[in-house]
């Protein structure tokens, strides 16, 4: 026999969802559709060549973004900064 008690549903544990910070949930961002193959490629996973070929425009776009972020990945601390930090520590 079916359980007709309306409170029964409440006892079913809610599906656990990943909690995002409040700030993100309150500011909905417009988003484009980035094909899964592009996400996988950017994540360093093996990607089927045909799937990438099907997303050629996105691939070219993200290849350019990757070239720029690659330069940023090699940014160094200004040479004077460590000395300035040590000077400030010694003043303390």
């Amino acid at each position, binding site marked *: 026999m079916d359980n007709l008690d309306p409170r029964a549903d409440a006892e079913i544990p809610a599906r656990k969802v*990943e909690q995002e910070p409040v700030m*993100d949930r309150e500011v909905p961002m417009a988003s484009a559709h980035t094909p899964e193959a592009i996400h996988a490629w950017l994540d360093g996973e093996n990607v089927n060549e045909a799937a990438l070929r099907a997303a050629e425009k996105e691939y070219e776009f993200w290849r350019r973004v990757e070239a720029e972020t690659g330069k940023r*990945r090699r*940014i160094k601390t200004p040479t004077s900064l*460590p000395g300035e930090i040590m000077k400030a520590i010694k003043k303390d």
Partner: protein
Amino acid sequence: MKGYTSVVKTTQAEPPQEDQIDADQAIIDRVLAGDRESFATLIGRYSDPLYRHAVGMTGSPDDAADILQNSFIKAYQHLGEVRGRFDAWVFRIVANGCKDWLKNIRRTHLSYEEDDQPSGYETPEEELDRGELRGDLDEALGALPPSLREAFVMKHVEGRSYEEMAELLETSVGALKMRVHRAREALQKLLEERYL
């Protein structure tokens, strides 16, 4: 098709090995025993990835340098409280410094052009390459909510693995993948009219 490869990342940031963690602890012990100069070794060891994080989050080399300086001073003052990995502990100080900066400054437009300090690109050519995409990417990153920007910067600018990010931010790999994917989709939306 030539040019399509299965793996993009060639410069993945590696988390420190066990012996590096022990070496950091030995330095911390020396500093706490009165050898202040040894702290410079910790600054030298970790300042580059932390600076990259701060530049990525603020978009400003000047402000990134200030955040880094304040963070290392704070780390020095509280060095006795380090439990576990020093690099993860000091990363959290810098990351919180960046979030506080974002809360206070509420900038919508970020640009390296406004700063006196060079950004620290590896070569003069890269420093001077103020191409359109660089400026537009800065602006688009500035429009992202802080947690999406943080995830994108850690993945794409710092070259960290999701596992390393999860350890540093004390959250799950799944949540971070979701944030990085959302950041990419928002960035693509912001830039697609011009570049797609």
